Each structure stands twice: as structure tokens, then as C-alpha cells.
């Protein structure tokens, strides 16, 4: 009984000691967490660190949590409680009683009983005055710690209130990291697309190798945006080269499909080619082979003539294999002889193989362009982030993006044409500058984003076969870049996006005097249109020049253009207003 009484009393003392210890440790944890948080806030002003405010809260919470956890872990024991009671006036009676209870000390029964009674009495007296015996620390005991905590929070508040220049940089780095991760996943998706695409093995391996190299480089380079951009530029060039190599095959196929679609007897093959469906092509060729026997000699001659005409068209394009295949097919058509068996090779089967090869090349071109689009999009965001961090966008990237921007122009049918301008720093929106039919891609796919005092982001839409356009330019410290996708036939202009930041003192003009896009003269639709030929960009190659000079040149060119172009007065006013707004002395 006495034993239970003693333990019950000691448990009360134990609970209070544990509570006080927990609070003390939690306070110490808060102090430590706050100190760590303030240090982190300070570091956040020296280095680009993300979410420092959140980390401050996390540190404080962790400090309190750790303090409480340690308090629970190191909770008071019964012996500690006994010692506290003994120190509180029991003169070691409780510890001695505990020793006897635990069998550590032996004595006669009477002595033990009397001693335990004395210990219990002392414990009861202590517990009755527990708050007095175990008081919370007086103010002077925790004054220093409280002042320290208050000071830390004052410093933290000051650091939080004053703007942190590193915050934007950290944000940009984070975005860059996200872009890189996104690019990695896009590369994986591209590889899957590659596996599903109807490509021959050689083309597939070539493209796959390029993507694999890029993936490895991205992994190894980490967050070095500048190097990543260089690597992306290299890959873009490779993809561009691949697309260029296969562009002719695509063009040839389109020509052939167009002609065949107009010709009776070859419509099905033409439509299959238009759909770029290899199996449909095979079926169409089989059907042609079967129908050939039923055609009259005159009809076969017409078809053979067409095939020969198509073959002759290939001569100028250098597609010798396709030319020979068409020639053989024409001969077979003229003779009216079909292969004896399905497995035997004849002119039509040669044509089928050649067309299949062409379809593979066309698919390769489409894939390469699609991948180039993805890479250029991600790269543009990286470049934007890099410029925000104050880094210099590698020239190889701007060159590569410029090239890739023009690369799509060839495939546009050019019903409408135009160039598009990238963002202008001033108002941040691009304006389509050409809506006339005919020539696409006279100007670089992405035009220069002018740096201005105010950063801007713009999108320029233009009709025509401006094609995939991407351009970038530096304006002072700002960087503008634009990207666009070209349309086939519909000729939607590329999106031009420019982001400029900097002042007007010096601007960097594009490196290329003129666009590298394929200049195509297009008759336009049957309704007619006006042919426009692009002029030279009024700039000097890739130099940093005074804004005033650049402005004067552009303004003069704009004035000249307005004079010779039949633009509505309202639009002319807008152009004038625009140049008024960006004049140097304004």
C-alpha cells in the first residue's frame, strides 16, 4: 500500500518535471531552429536558394518538434522525481525508500516500514506544494533566451521584408531544373514515338543515337544551363540536318501524291501517299496491279505517261531511285505485264519499295522537326531563365534557334506568306507584318526581339509559310526570343515571343543580316494574291550598338516600307505610334 502511495506521488512529480523539461527543450529547439532559419535567410541573400521563408518555418517547427521529442524521450524517471523530492526537503528519504522497494538495500522490517512512512509523508508534503516546489523558471532565468529569440525573429522579419535579389535567380534556376526534367521526359516520349514510327532501321538508329546522346549530356551537365544550351544547339543542328536531308523526299512525295490524286486510276495511290500510310500504299499498288489487266491500252498509256512525267520531275530533285522506280512502273504499265506471282518483283513492286522509302524519309523529317520543336521550346525557356539569372546565352544557341526557325518554311504550301516579328520590349506583343500571299520565309523565321527598357513578352502571329520560326536577340541585357511553327499549306506563321530586359543604351542586333529560310515564290491561291519579296533586315551583323542608331535605322526602314505598302491608314498610324513610343529621347 505504502509502495503504491509512494509511486503515485512520485508519478505526479515526474509528470511535472517531464512537462517542464519538454517546454524547456521545445523553447531551446525553437531558438535553435530560428537561428538556423535566420542563417538560411542570410545565405539566401548570397546564394540562390528557393523557398527560404518556408524553410524558416520548417526549421522552427522541427526545432520545437525535436525539443518535444527529446523531452518525451528523456522524460523524467521515478528516481529523478524521488531526487527532486529529496532535494526539496526530504533529505534522501524517498531515494532510500525506493532502494528498499527495489531490493537494493536491506534492513529490518520495522526500520523499513518506519522509513517508508517517513518518505511518504515527505512526498505528500512535497506534492501538496508541487507548484511551489517545482515552479516554472523565473523571468530572469529565461530572459536571455527570450531576448535572443526575439532578436532572431526581428532579424528574420527584416530579412523577409527587404527584397531579396537572389529570389528571382533562385526561381529561374528552379524553373530551369523543371525545364530540364521536362525535356528529359520529352526525350523519353520522343524515343517511344520513334519506335512506333514507320522508319527504316538506319534512320531510326541515327535519330535514336542523337536523342540518346542528348539525354546523356543533359544528365551529365546538370544545371549548367549555358552548357545545356550549347548541347541543345548541337542537337538542333543535327536534327535540322536530318530534316534537310529528307526534305526533298517529302517534297517529292507530296508532288507525286498531288499529281496521282488528280489522275484517274492512281487516285487511291495518291491518297495513300497523302496520308503517308505505307500499308495503304501497298494495297493501292496491289489493286493497280490487278486493275492494270482490265485497263485499255490507251488508259495504260495515259497512266504510263503520267508516271514517266513524274519520273522526269524527280530528275531535277535528285531522287534517282524514285525516278527509276517510276520509270520501271511506267514501262510495266505501258506493256501491261504483271508479275507472274505475288512474290515476284516487277516495276510496280519497285515503285512500292521506293515510295515506302520515301515515306520513311518523310516520317523521319516529321519526327526530326517535331523533336526540334520540343527541344527549341525547352531551350528557349532555359535561355530565358539563363538571361534572368544574368547569364549569357551562348551564341551557338541563338544561331541554332535561328536556323531551326527557318527550317520549316520549305514545307509550307505558301498560300499565305509573311514574316512575323518577335516580341518588342516595349509593349510585349508582336504584330504580324505580312499577310500577303506568295513568299514565305524571306525573313528569318524568328525576327529580332528588341530589347527595351521594359521587359515584354510578345507573340507574333503571321500567316503564310513563315514556317517554323524562332528567333532570338539580345537587347542590352535583355534577351528576346521567338519561336513559331510553320503550317503546311495553311501557312500559319510562327509564334514570336520576345522577352527583353535592359536599358536602351546598347542593344544587340541579330547576327544574320537575313533569314536563312528557304525563299519560295508561290503563286498563291487561285483567287490571286500579291507577291512580296522580303528585304534585308536593316541591321549590322551581331554587334552591340547604341540604341539610337538602331532605332534610326529601323524607323527609317519602317517609314520606307509604309510608303511603298498599301496599308490601311489605321495600321500605318499604329506603326508610327509604335516608333514614336520607342524613340530614344522619349
Amino acid at each position, binding site marked *: 500500500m505504502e509502495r503504491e502511495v509512494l509511486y503515485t506521488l512520485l508519478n505526479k512529480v515526474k509528470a511535472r518535471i517531464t512537462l517542464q523539461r519538454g517546454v524547456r527543450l521545445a523553447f531551446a529547439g525553437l531558438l535553435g531552429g530560428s537561428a538556423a532559419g535566420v542563417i538560411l535567410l542570410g545565405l539566401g541573400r548570397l546564394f540562390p536558394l528557393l523557398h527560404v521563408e518556408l524553410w524558416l518555418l520548417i526549421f522552427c517547427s522541427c526545432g520545437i518538434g525535436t525539443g518535444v521529442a527529446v523531452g518525451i524521450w528523456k522524460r523524467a524517471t521515478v528516481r529523478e522525481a524521488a531526487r527532486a523530492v*529529496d*532535494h526539496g526537503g526530504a*533529505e*534522501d*528519504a524517498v*531515494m*532510500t*525508500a*525506493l*532502494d*528498499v522497494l527495489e531490493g*537494493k*538495500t536491506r*534492513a*529490518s522490517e*520495522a*526500520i*523499513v516500514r*518506519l*522509513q517508508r*512512512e*517517513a518518505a511518504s509523508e515527505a512526498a505528500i508534503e512535497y506534492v501538496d506544494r508541487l507548484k511551489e516546489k517545482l515552479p516554472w523558471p523565473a523571468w530572469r532565468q529565461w530572459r536571455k533566451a527570450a531576448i535572443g529569440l526575439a532578436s532572431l525573429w526581428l532579424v528574420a522579419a527584416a530579412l523577409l521584408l527587404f527584397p531579396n535579389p537572389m529570389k528571382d535567380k533562385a526561381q529561374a534556376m528552379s524553373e530551369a531544373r523543371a525545364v530540364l526534367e521536362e525535356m528529359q521526359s520529352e526525350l523519353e516520349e520522343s524515343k517511344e514515338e520513334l519506335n512506333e514510327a514507320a522508319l527504316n532501321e538506319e534512320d531510326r538508329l541515327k535519330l535514336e543515337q542523337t536523342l540518346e546522346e542528348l539525354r546523356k549530356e543533359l544528365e551529365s551537365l546538370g544545371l549548367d544551363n549555358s552548357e545545356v544550351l550549347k548541347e541543345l544547339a548541337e542537337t538542333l543542328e543535327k536534327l535540322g540536318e536530318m530534316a534537310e536531308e529528307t526534305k526533298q523526299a517529302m517534297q517529292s512525295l507530296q508532288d507525286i501524291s498531288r499529281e496521282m490524286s488528280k489522275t484517274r486510276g492512281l487516285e487511291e495511290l495518291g491518297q495513300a501517299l497523302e496520308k503517308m500510310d505505307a500499308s495503304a500504299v501497298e494495297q493501292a499498288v496491289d489493286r493497280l496491279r490487278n486493275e492494270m489487266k482490265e485497263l485499255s491500252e490507251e488508259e495504260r498509256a495515259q497512266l504510263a505517261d503520267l508516271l514517266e512525267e513524274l519520273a522526269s520531275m524527280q530528275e531535277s530533285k535528285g531522287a534517282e531511285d524514285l525516278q527509276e522506280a517510276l520509270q520501271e512502273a511506267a514501262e510495266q504499265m505501258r506493256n501491261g505485264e504483271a508479275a507472274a506471282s505475288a512474290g515476284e518483283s516487277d516495276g510496280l513492286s519497285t515503285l512500292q519499295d521506293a515510295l515506302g522509302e520515301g515515306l520513311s524519309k518523310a516520317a523521319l523529317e516529321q519526327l526530326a522537326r517535331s523533336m526540334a520543336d520540343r527541344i527549341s521550346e525547352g531551350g528557349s525557356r532555359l535561355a530565358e531563365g539563363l538571361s534572368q539569372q544574368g547569364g549569357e546565352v551562348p551564341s551557338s544557341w541563338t544561331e541554332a534557334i535561328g536556323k531551326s526557325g527557318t527550317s520549316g518554311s520549305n514545307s509550307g504550301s505558301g498560300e499565305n506568306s509573311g514574316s512575323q516579328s518577335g516580341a518588342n520590349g516595349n509593349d510585349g506583343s508582336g504584330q504580324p507584318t505580312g499577310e500577303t500571299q506568295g513568299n514565305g520565309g524571306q525573313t528569318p523565321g524568328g525576327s529580332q526581339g528588341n530589347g527595351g527598357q521594359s521587359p515584354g513578352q510578345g507573340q507574333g502571329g503571321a500567316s503564310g509559310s513563315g514556317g517554323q520560326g524562332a528567333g532570338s536577340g539580345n537587347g542590352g541585357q535583355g534577351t528576346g526570343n521567338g519561336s513559331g511553327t510553320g503550317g503546311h499549306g495553311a501557312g500559319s506563321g510562327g509564334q514570336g515571343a520576345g522577352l527583353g530586359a535592359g536599358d536602351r543604351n546598347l542593344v544587340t542586333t541579330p547576327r544574320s543580316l537575313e533569314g536563312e529560310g528557304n525563299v519560295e515564290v508561290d503563286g498563291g491561291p487561285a483567287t490571286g494574291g500579291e507577291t512580296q519579296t522580303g528585304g534585308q533586315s536593316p541591321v549590322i551583323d551581331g554587334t552591340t550598338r547604341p540604341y539610337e542608331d538602331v532605332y534610326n535605322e529601323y524607323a527609317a526602314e519602317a517609314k520606307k516600307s509604309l510608303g511603298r505598302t498599301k496599308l490601311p491608314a489605321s495600321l500605318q498610324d499604329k506603326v508610327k505610334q509604335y516608333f514614336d513610343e520607342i524613340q530614344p529621347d522619349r
Partner: protein
Amino acid sequence: MIETKEQLEAAASRITAVKAEIGRVIVGQNEVVEQLLWCLLAGGHALLEGIPGLGKTMLVRTIADVVALKFSRIQFTPDLMPSDITGTNLIDFSTQGAAVSRFQPGPLFGNLVLADEINRATPKTQSALLEAMQEGTVTAGGETHILPKPFFVLATQNPIEQEGTYPLPEAQLDRFLLKIGVRYPTREELKEIVVRTTSPVAVQAQTALDGEELVALQLAAKELLVSEEMLDTAVRIVMMTHPGEADAPEAIKRHVRFGAGPRALQALIAISKVRALCSGRLHVSWNDIREAAPPVLRHRIVLGYEAQAMGITSDEMSAAILGEIEASR
């Protein structure tokens, strides 16, 4: 044997009464009186050290009166022989002329023996006390004689007159449970001493405790409880007197040549128990150990030459040890 709270209180009050009775004769010296009583109740011997005239002899005599023990006094001198204190065999001639050998007990055969100025006797004579103090027996002429119980040796020595003295060897010193320093009286005490000793009526102490009661109290003290923590503390104190001990205070490491032995630990616990009994407690507390430690360690800590030259005392060493333990509690 204490079985009730009342018995405990009675024992404590009896001790208080003894102290009060001694106080009727002895002016001041409360600490010395208390420590002498601890020694008696613990069944040990005490060495009193003080300059002449402080009432050491009178104190011992008063205690003998109060406790009703057979008192004998030996004045130690350089020519004192061992047989002078232990006793000797005599030859008695009967009326028929036959010679019979008979042991004539010496002054040691008392309950309370005052060995006055013990350091004046030669080591040979001092050593004769060893057996009596440790074993409670005396051997003479090949025969061992048991000393009466209780047996206490209360020795005195003068610390200032060193010429013609023989300092007690360490082994002899270790047999004394306590070494009690007798201090000089205060002004008030001096006045009181003069008043009491120059008045025509001499105060005589009355018996407050007989031998049986003393033995009963001694047994009761031995039954008291000592917690594991207090035992550890006592051990730690003794261990800390050793200069080679890792947790010994810096002062001990610097000034002490040899520390206390196991008898010190026994003495510390025994005295602490007695002190607890005097306080009406059934267990030993830190306060008991802290109060008991200085007189227990005083003659057991051997200081180095440098420390002696610097006037450092073993009490300072004890204080250093106790201070460290107090801080760590």
C-alpha cells in the same frame, strides 16, 4: 532495536540529553562534543587535537561522567613503557610462601580511556595501543586479556609542541575513527568559562546514559538504512582523496600524497548513520555524509611537503571534494 517512531524519537532525545548534560560543564565546543558523541555511538576511538588549555581532558572526563563509564587516564610521556598501560604479570607470594603469577591490569582496562598527549610516548608504547584499539584485547605474558565493553580511547595531542614528541604513525592514526580539532573558545565562551571555573560552586555533570543504553544506541545506529546513492557518494568521496583518481579535484592531485583507505569509508558510513540517528532519521542523507567527512578524512589524507609548507590543511582538501560532489548533485 527501534520498532516504532516513538522509540526513534526517544533515542534521538536521549542523545540530545547527553549533549545538554555535557554542555552544562563544557562551555562551547558544541561541534567537538557532537563529534565525540558520534564517535562513542559508532563505537570508535577519537583523536582530539588542540593547543593546551582548551579543555580536552575535561571534556573527556565529563563524557565519562555523563555516560557512566569506567574512566581511566594515561598521561603519555617518553619514558612510558607498554606494560605501564597494558598491565603486567606480578608474582604474589602466598602465606605458605608459594609464588603465584598474577596479571595486574593496566589503565587500558577501562571503558573510557583518556590517552593524554599520546604523541609524547615512544612509538613502542604507542603501538601497544594498536591491539587494544583494534581488537579490544591486551596480550601480556603470553596471555590475551579482553578489555571491557564498551571500550573507547580518546587521545589528545598538542600540535604546536613538536620537540620531544613522536608523531603517530599512519597505521595508528587510521585506527582513530575521527580526528577532532578543538578550536579556541570565542569571547563569550571565554567569559563563561571564567565565570564557571572561578565560582565557588563547581558544576558536576550527571549521568544521562549508562553503558547498556549506549550499546543499544550503537546497535540502533547500525540498523539504519543507507541508500545506494549515498553509498556511491561515500565511495566517491573516499576515492576522490586519491591523487591518482581521474575525477579527483585538482587540489587533491596537486597537494595530496596518499588518500584515505577502506577504514575511512567504514568510518564515514558509521558516523553518518549515527548522525542520522541523532537527527531522528532512519536513513543516511547527503547532509550526514557531508558533515561526517571532514573529521573522518582529516587524519587520513596525507599531504605533500609542498602543501604542508604552504599551510594547506586536509580540511581544505575535504572541502574541495565535497564542493565538487555538491555541485554535481
